[in-house]
């Protein structure tokens, strides 16, 4: 049971008490008849301090949920980025292979045409050149 001196309350109302003194003052639970104002005010403060149970846990749960969401989101982005990189590299090699094939075909055509140009004296309809891929027939 706490009982404080009238002077303490006077100092309190004048804002001359320290925070520590005020913490002690707020523990007062016995008041005289002429201290109704103090009783009323300190009870009001006590009511105002009330808060929901387990607030700290709820706040930490919210932070944990957010972290989990961020982690899931990060994993999703990482997977999407990996898939994009794999697809990009695969596409690059496919295109490169295709270009190489075309280059080979052009080289073949070029070689063939060189060969044909040496045998330009032809009769119409005569097969000038033939291989597995190309058949060249004289036109005139």
């Amino acid at each position, binding site marked *: 049971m706490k009982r404080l001196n009238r002077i303490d309350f006077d100092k309190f109302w004048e804002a001359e008490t320290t*925070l520590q003194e*005020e913490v002690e003052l707020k523990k007062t639970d016995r008041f005289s008849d002429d201290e109704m104002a103090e009783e009323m005010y300190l009870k009001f403060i006590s009511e105002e*301090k009330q808060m*929901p149970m387990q*607030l700290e846990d709820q706040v*930490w749960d919210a*932070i944990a949920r957010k972290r989990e969401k961020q982690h899931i989101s990060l994993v999703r982005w990482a997977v999407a980025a990996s898939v994009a990189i794999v697809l990009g590299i695969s596409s690059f090699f496919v295109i490169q292979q295709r270009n190489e094939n075309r280059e080979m075909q052009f080289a073949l055509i070029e070689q063939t045409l060189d060969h044909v140009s040496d045998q330009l004296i032809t009769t119409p309809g005569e097969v000038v050149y033939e291989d597995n891929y190309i058949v060249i027939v004289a036109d005139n």
Partner: protein
Amino acid sequence: MTEQDFKDNVLPLSAQVFPMARRLLGNNEAARDAIQQSMLKLWENRKQLSTCTNVKAFTFKVVRNTCLDEIKRKKPVLFDMAEQGIHFDSQHEQNLDSKEAWYLVKTIIEQLPELQREVIQMRDVDDLDFEEIAGVMELEITHVRVLLSRARKTVREKLVKIYAYEAVKQN
């Protein structure tokens, strides 16, 4: 700041900032949301938080700003003690005088000028020292002292008047 430091030094302040958030937003649910939002901000900026000289004052400031932003965003909720979840103990519930007394003090505080009201609530309900209040409200410490002194004097005068009136009525 590590997770453990955050749990030890910042998270426990959730309970201490709750009355302020409830005062500003008018109900428990909104206060809880604002605190969660503020704590998330602090968690995400915990690296900078470790360089902060007064973590308590900074936390109060972040929560206060979050509440003020929320008030700007939404229409303020009318103060409702039942919705607020102010729980009187069983003895109080049977005693209407306690509720009346609570309303009276609340009304007296609500009628104070804004700065005085915030200072008296931060000091008496939130238990902040002058330096912390000055940090949160961006005021000089001497100004905070003056505001607190004036606010308490006004509250006392009004409470004494009410009781004097009640005493006369009873006699």
